[in-house]
């Protein structure tokens, strides 16, 4: 008991603990994202090196923990960290959603008979995957370092290179322009493009907290 009390005395403030937990959640998200992409696109039998469901639950626990810690911090220590506390409570939702989408990608991999191929859309899909990975990895670094120029650059990349490209894939499937894919491939590809877009969007929301004031979280930077 005394050891635990001593640890409490020497520990960081609840806000700092919550921020640290957000960083840890992002690292878990990235591991889940890469493993789920591999499972869907590289493996015929939905190979998975990690227990993604267990990690998703861990992220959910972290989310509740962050909310509780911020609530307690604001109630006890006053309004000094009100803005940053509210930001953390907001971005933790984005971080948790990213985890959900990576889980959705893996669930699709389990149900898809073989690895997912993009056919005539393969080149575009590869480009999007690379961009989403870059934006997500970059967002984690920018968020951890509170790097404003990097965050501004990544926010622009999302709109130009992820959002529009994902929509193009979905629209071309829905409009029947893609003829070389089977029904299951088309459905999976449309869903996959949607999941990638959402992961990109939540990454954008995350770094908008580095650039924007609280009221503009998740929106583009005001000129």
């Amino acid at each position, binding site marked *: *008991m005394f050891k*635990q009390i001593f640890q*409490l*005395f020497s*520990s*960081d*403030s*609840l806000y700092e*603990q919550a921020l640290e937990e957000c960083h840890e959640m992002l690292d878990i998200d990235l591991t889940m994202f890469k493993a789920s992409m591999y499972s869907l696109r590289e493996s015929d039998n939905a190979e998975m090196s990690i227990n993604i469901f267990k990690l998703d639950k861990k992220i959910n626990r972290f989310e509740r923990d962050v909310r*509780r*810690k911020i*609530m*307690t*911090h604001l*109630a*006890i*220590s*006053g309004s000094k960290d009100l803005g940053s506390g509210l930001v953390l409570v907001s971005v933790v939702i984005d971080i948790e959603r990213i985890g959900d989408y990576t889980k959705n990608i893996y669930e699709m991999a389990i149900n898809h008979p073989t690895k997912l191929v993009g056919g005539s859309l393969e080149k575009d899909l590869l480009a999007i995957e690379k961009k989403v990975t870059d934006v997500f990895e970059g967002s984690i670094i920018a968020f951890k370092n509170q790097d404003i120029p990097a965050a501004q650059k990544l926010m622009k990349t999302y709109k130009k290179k992820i959002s529009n490209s994902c929509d193009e894939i979905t629209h071309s499937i829905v409009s029947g322009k893609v003829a070389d894919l089977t029904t299951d491939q088309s459905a999976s590809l449309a869903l996959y493009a949607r999941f990638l877009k959402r992961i990109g969007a939540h990454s954008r929301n995350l770094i908008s907290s580095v650039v924007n004031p609280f009221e503009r979280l998740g929106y583009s930077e005001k000129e």
Partner: protein
Amino acid sequence: MSKELQRTLINSISIIAFLYLFLVGINGMSSAIKHFGSGFADTVLSTTDNPFLALFIGTFATVLFQSSSTTTSLIVGMVSAGVLSIEGSIPMIMGANIGTTVTNTIVSMGHISRGNEFKRAFAASTVHDFFNMLSVLIMFPLELKFHFIQKSAIGLGEFLFGNISSNEVMKSPIKTAVKWGSKQIEILSFDNNIFYLILSVLLTLFMLYMIVKVLRKMVLSKVEVFFDKYIFKTAIRALLFGMLLTFMVQSSSITTSLIVPLAGAGVLSLRQIFPYTLGANIGTTATALLAALSLNVTALVTAFAHLIFNIFGILIIYPIPFIRNIPIKLAETLAEYSIKNRLIPFAYLLIVFIVIPFTIIYFGGK
């Protein structure tokens, strides 16, 4: 020297200065009352002779000051001056315990527009009210009949000091310094006793306010991690934490009000909060003990009575699950009714803390 260290140093020096001036104020008040002579003492003694009246004076005064530490410090000052007997002070102290719970109940009203959040916050604040009312309900008649709190406090005083008398003083360099300080106030008031009393009381109130303010700033950011999970897992830890935190910030109103938003948000449950508020009851007795140290043994015995009353309250109510659940059930029921009709919490506050004490004081005093 780092800024953090500088700030801590300035705050620590401020606390010592405020504490000294608080003791000067209490000492000055006691000394000014003594100057009024035996006629004044007899009037006050006869007014507070009625224990029911004394009980509600204690409640009403604490509701007005929003601080039981202030009321009990003034009570020990009056006992030290001889205008209040130890016996007469005990019902007042009991009343102060009831009155002090008004602050966190008012804080919980801030959640009134939000259904379940208000229900949790209101129950978390009124559980303290009901516990303190229940302990008065049990111990007030027993005290009238057997004087067990008074006897215990005197017993403790005799054990520590041998003789209980207002002439018996604890000699120390601090006390000499405090006496010198109160003499300066007397000079400042041009030897007018009424001015001397007013200045001393104002100094006491203001210094206590400043002590709490600075301590709150110093302590709370350091202890916020204790509000997370670990401490509230067991009742004994929560009780000890409530006691220590209240001792550190010298105000149970602050420590019990702090947890109201946490209860409202569902971070802490009513059952986790309950022992913490009981700890706050014990911690808040430190202010009067501190004030009494600069006065005389009789004042200290009164401060002991405050401590003993709160310890007995916990010992009588908390160990037996049936009795322990009474304040919890009452708080939950009142909160349940309060979300159905939002006038109920207002009526509760008004009737319990204003109308009843005021009516009894008004008619009882005639």
